[in-house]
């Protein structure tokens, strides 16, 4: 295989694994890698093949660009879906990422659930709320079918709506902030020596 063919083969694979980037971003990266290979080969007198080996597999190099970009985009986003996608990517890298992903999932599920129950309360007032039994112990909460029997009483009434909306929204905001912070921190740890 000639040097030119080896280079083309490497760049084709690099392009393939940079698929999620825009064409302009991809070609800019490819152009820089081509310049590096030429410079490095000239400087050290090494063959193109040796320089490509030193660069590492095209798939891994592309993953560093891709992950950096995805996590960076996510760390600046307010969309729970984009943030969770970034956290999922982080989860493939280690225990910290797995923890961030599951804490994020739990936070969104709890926050979203609370907001949803607040919206359901005006439609199903008897089935939605927080119930305590006769001796003052917590029995249940949420949207229940059927609602708890006469031994339990709902304690919040229509106050359930503002309380659930506030707590749910705060939980969603906190989860957003926590994932964004974790993603920003992780960007500094990802570089490979």
């Amino acid at each position, binding site marked *: 295989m000639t040097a030119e063919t080896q280079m083309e083969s490497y760049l084709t694979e690099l392009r393939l694994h940079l698929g999620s980037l825009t064409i302009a971003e991809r070609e800019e990266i490819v152009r820089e890698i081509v310049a590096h290979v030429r*410079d490095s080969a000239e400087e050290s007198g090494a063959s193109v093949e040796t320089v490509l080996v030193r660069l590492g597999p095209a798939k891994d190099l592309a993953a560093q660009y891709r992950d*950096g970009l995805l996590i960076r985009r996510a760390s600046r986003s307010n969309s729970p879906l984009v943030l969770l996608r970034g956290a999922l990517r982080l989860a493939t890298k280690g225990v910290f990422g797995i923890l961030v992903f599951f804490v994020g999932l739990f936070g969104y599920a709890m926050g979203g659930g609370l907001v949803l129950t607040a919206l359901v309360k005006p439609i199903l007032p008897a089935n939605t709320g927080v119930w305590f039994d006769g001796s003052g112990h917590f029995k249940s909460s949420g949207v229940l079918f059927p609602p708890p029997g006469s031994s339990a009483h709902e304690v919040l009434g229509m106050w359930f709506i503002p309380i659930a909306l506030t707590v749910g929204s705060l939980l969603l905001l906190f989860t957003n902030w926590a994932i964004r912070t974790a993603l920003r921190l992780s960007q500094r740890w990802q570089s490979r020596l």
Partner: protein
Amino acid sequence: MENKRTLPGDGEQPDRWEAQLRKGALEMAALACLWQGRLYGLEIIRFLENHSQLVLAEGTIYPILNRLKAEDLLTSEWVEAEAGHPRKYYSLTDAGRQRLRLMAEAWTSFSKGLSHLIEPVLEPKEIPQ
């Protein structure tokens, strides 16, 4: 570099700890290379090797530069070189200079405090029982 040493107690290799430490400093190091002027990728790799003992895998620096540029800490331009092909030169932006200055201050203050703490450890005396 000695690869076989282990930390007594937890079995972790000091090299792994050292690698984590270097990773933490890499962003600052990449920015610091450009303090005195623009450089292209391979020059940055060699500058780091010669001035900081940070030896990088050749493909490592480019995704980092890409990220720092996306954070508006660096700017880049393609320049036609005598070598016959263009090279992508990186320079610090004003925001990059500011960030680097803050990082350098934090690093100096942190390492000064820590050096003071570990001073007795490096003295070639008896190990306390």
